[in-house]
C-alpha cells in the first residue's frame, strides 16, 4: 500500500514552529490543490494548533517524502525547521497514525474531544476539493469510526482536564443543578471567559460578570447573555451569588476573609462556591474555614485534572485495541481490492458466453420459452460462479499472504484466458 505522510506535532516541534506551520482552511485548500497537481492522487491535510499532517497516495507510487516536504515548505516558508521536526509514515503505519490521531490518544491532552471534529473537517475539505478515492474515503470513514468508538466504549474523553472545567465539576458536586443558581465571574480575560462559558453551557440561571475595566465586562456579558456588576460594588452584591469564579490578574486579594464572613451572614448560611482560578490568588483561602463555604484554588483543582489525565492514560490500551481491530478490518477490505478486478473479469467472461448462446437461440423459441431459458441461464451462471467468487474473496480477506492472492488471480486469468489489460485493478 503506497500511502505516505508527514507529521509535525507537539511531540516533535516547539509551539513557535507549530504556529509558524499552522495552515488556515484557505491555506489548506491551496496546499491541497498544489499536492493534487504535482504529488498525490488523493489524500488530506490536517492542521491544528498542535499538529500539521499531510497524507496521500503518490501519483508515481513511490515512497518519496521529499516532494511533500518541499511543497509544504515552499508554501509556508518556515525557517529553522529541522528534519527531526517531521515524522514520516508509510503504508500500515500511516493508517495507524491517522486512527490514533482521530481517537485522541496522540493529542497533547489525551482524549481531546476537539481533534475528531478537526479531523472530520480535514476529510470534508478533501472531499470538497475532489482529492479522494475509494481507499482514502475508507480511511476517513474508519478514522471517524475509531474516534467515535473510542469516546463511546472507553473513558478516554471522561473527566475534566482543564482548571476551569474541573472547577465546574466541583460545583456540580455541591449543587445538584445550576438551573436555579446564580454565578458571578470576576475577570473578563481568557480564563474568566472560559469559566463563564462552561457555566453557561451547564445551564446556569443567572450569570454576572465583573471586571475592573467595565467595557470589557460588558463585552463578555453581551457575548454570554449575562449581566454586568460594577467592580466597586462587588462585595455588596456578593450575597446574591451561589457560585463565584475569580480569574483576575490583580496582585492582592479582591475578597478577604471578613468579606466572605459578612457575606455568609447575609446569605443566612446558604452554601457558596468560591473558585479562585487566578494566579496570584484573588480570594483569601482562610475563607475555606467557614461552614458551607467551598473554596478551591488552582492547586486543589489541579488534583482533579491530574487524576483525570491519569485515568485517560490508563484507557489508552483499550483505544489501541479498537485501533487494532479496525486496522484488521480495514486491511481485510483493502486486500480484497486485488481480487475485485479478477472477479469482475471472470463474471463478465461467463456472462458474455451466456449472452452469446442466448442470442443464438433467441429467434428459435417463443418469447415465453426464451424468457424461461434466459432465466435459467442467469441462475445457472450465478450458481456456477458463486463458489469461485466467494472462495476468491475469502482468500483476499484473510490477507495473510498477498502472493497467494496474486497467484490465484493470475491462475484464474490464465485458465480462462482473460484479457489482462482490460481487467487491471481499477482502484489502485
Amino acid at each position, binding site marked *: 500500500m503506497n500511502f505516505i505522510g508527514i507529521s509535525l506535532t507537539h511531540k516533535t516541534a516547539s509551539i513557535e514552529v507549530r504556529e509558524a506551520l499552522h495552515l488556515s482552511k484557505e491555506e489548506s485548500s491551496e496546499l491541497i490543490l498544489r499536492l493534487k497537481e504535482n504529488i498525490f492522487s488523493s489524500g488530506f491535510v490536517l492542521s491544528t494548533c498542535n499538529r500539521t499532517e499531510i497524507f496521500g497516495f503518490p501519483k508515481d507510487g513511490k515512497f518519496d517524502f521529499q516532494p511533500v516536504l518541499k511543497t509544504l515548505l515552499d508554501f509556508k516558508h518556515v525557517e529553522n525547521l529541522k528534519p527531526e521536526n517531521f515524522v514520516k509514515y508509510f503504508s500500515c503505519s500511516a493508517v495507524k497514525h491517522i486512527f490514533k490521531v482521530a481517537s485522541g490518544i496522540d493529542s497533547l491532552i489525551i482524549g481531546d474531544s476537539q481533534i475528531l471534529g478537526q479531523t472530520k473537517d480535514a476529510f470534508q475539505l478533501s472531499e470538497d476539493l475532489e482529492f479522494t478515492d475509494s481507499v482514502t474515503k475508507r480511511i476517513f470513514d474508519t478514522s471517524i469510526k475509531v474516534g467515535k468508538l473510542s469516546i463511546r466504549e472507553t473513558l478516554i474523553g471522561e473527566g475534566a482536564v482543564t482548571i476551569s472545567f474541573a472547577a465546574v465539576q466541583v460545583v456540580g*458536586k455541591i449543587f445538584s443543578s445550576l438551573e436555579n443558581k446564580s454565578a458571578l465571574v470576576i475577570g473578563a480575560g481568557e480564563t474568566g471567559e472560559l469559566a463563564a462559558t462552561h457555566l453557561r453551557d451547564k445551564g446556569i440561571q443567572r450569570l454576572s460578570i465583573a471586571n475592573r475595566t467595565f467595557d470589557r465586562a460588558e463585552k463578555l456579558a453581551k457575548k454570554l447573555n449575562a449581566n454586568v456588576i460594577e467592580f466597586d460594588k462587588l462585595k455588596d452584591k456578593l450575597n446574591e451569588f451561589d457560585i463565584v469564579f475569580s480569574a483576575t490578574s490583580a496582585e492582592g486579594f479582591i475578597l478577604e476573609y471578613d468579606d466572605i464572613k459578612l457575606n455568609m451572614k447575609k446569605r443566612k*448560611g446558604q452554601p457558596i462556591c468560591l473558585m479562585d482560578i487566578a494566579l496570584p490568588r484573588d480570594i483569601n483561602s482562610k475563607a475555606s474555614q467557614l*461552614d458551607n463555604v*467551598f473554596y478551591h484554588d488552582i492547586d486543589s483543582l489541579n*488534583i*482533579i485534572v491530574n*487524576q483525570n489525565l491519569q485515568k485517560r492514560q490508563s484507557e489508552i490500551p483499550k483505544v489501541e485495541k479498537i485501533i487494532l481491530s479496525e486496522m484488521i478490518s480495514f486491511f481485510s477490505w483493502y486486500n480484497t481490492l486485488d481480487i475485485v478486478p479478477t472477479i469482475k473479469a471472470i463474471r463478465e467472461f461467463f456472462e458474455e458466453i451466456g449472452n452469446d448462446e442466448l442470442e443464438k437461440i433467441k429467434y428459435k423459441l417463443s418469447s415465453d420459452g426464451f424468457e424461461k431459458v434466459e432465466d435459467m441461464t442467469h441462475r445457472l451462471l450465478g450458481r456456477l460462479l458463486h463458489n469461485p467468487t466467494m472462495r476468491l474473496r475469502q482468500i483476499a480477506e484473510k490477507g495473510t499472504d498477498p502472493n497467494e492472492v496474486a497467484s490465484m488471480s493470475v491462475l484464474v486469468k490464465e485458465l480462462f484466458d482473460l484479457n489482462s489489460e482490460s481487467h487491471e485493478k481499477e482502484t489502485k
Partner: protein
Amino acid sequence: MLTQIHSLNILLPFLYFVTFAVYFLDFTKELKFFNRSKRIALFASISTHLFYLALRTFEFQHPPITSKFEIFSILAFAIGFSFFLLELISEVHKTGVFVIGISVFFQVLSTIFILDNYEVKEVLRNNLLGLHVISALLGYAGFTVSAVYGILFTIMYKQIKRNKFGKIFVQLPSLELLEKLSFYSVIIGFLLLTFAISIGIIWLPQAFSDFTYLDPKLISTTIVWLIFGTGILTKLVGNWYGKKVIKFFLIGYALTILSMFLANVILPSFHSFY
C-alpha cells in the same frame, strides 16, 4: 407452607447479600452489567421478602410483629423498600451499597434467631396493632435512611473541603441532593411515625388496662417525634442549610436510638410485648 417459610428465611439473607454485592461492585467497578443488574437484584429481594412476610402472616395467623426478630425482618424489608422507591424517583444511583448493608444486617439476625410463633398474646393478633407497629417501623426506617444520607453528606462535605477527590467524590451525588434525600426521608419517617402515634393514642387506652401516658416508650417516642418535628420546622421556617441541618438530624437519630434502647431494654413498660 412451613417448609417454604423456612427455605425463604434462609434464602433472604443470601438475596440481600447478593444485592449488596452488586451495589458494591457498581460503586467500585463502574461496569454497565452491575449498573443494570442492581435494581433487578433489589426488586427480587424485596418481592421475595414481601412474599415471605405474607406467608408468615397467613401461616401463624398474626402479623409478623410478635418478636424482636420478626420486627428485624420487617425493618430489613422497610429499609430495602424505602430505598427502592427513593432510587426509582430520584437521580441517586450510587448510594445503595450504604443502605442495603443495613438490610443485610437486620435480616441475618432475624434469620438466625427467628422462631415459629403459633402461640402469641391475643393483643398481638390485633390488626390495629399490626398497622401501628408497621407504620412506626416504616417511620424509623425513614429516619435510618435519612441518617445514612446524613453520614454520606458529612463524608462528602469533608472530602470537598479537604480537596480529596477520590471514589467517594466521583460516585456520590451532590451535597445538595444528599441533603434533600436526608430531609425527604425524615419527612416520610415523621409522617409515618405521626400516623403510628395517632393510632396508638386512640387504640392503646382501650387495649391496655394499665395504660399510662408516663410510659417510657411513649415518652421516648414523643421525644423522637419532637426532635424530628423541630428539625423539619427549623429547615422549613428557619431556613437552615447544609451542614447545620444534617448535624441536627444525625444528633436526632442518635438520640432516637438511645431513647429506644432505654425504653425497650432498660425501663419497664406496659408497651413491651416480648
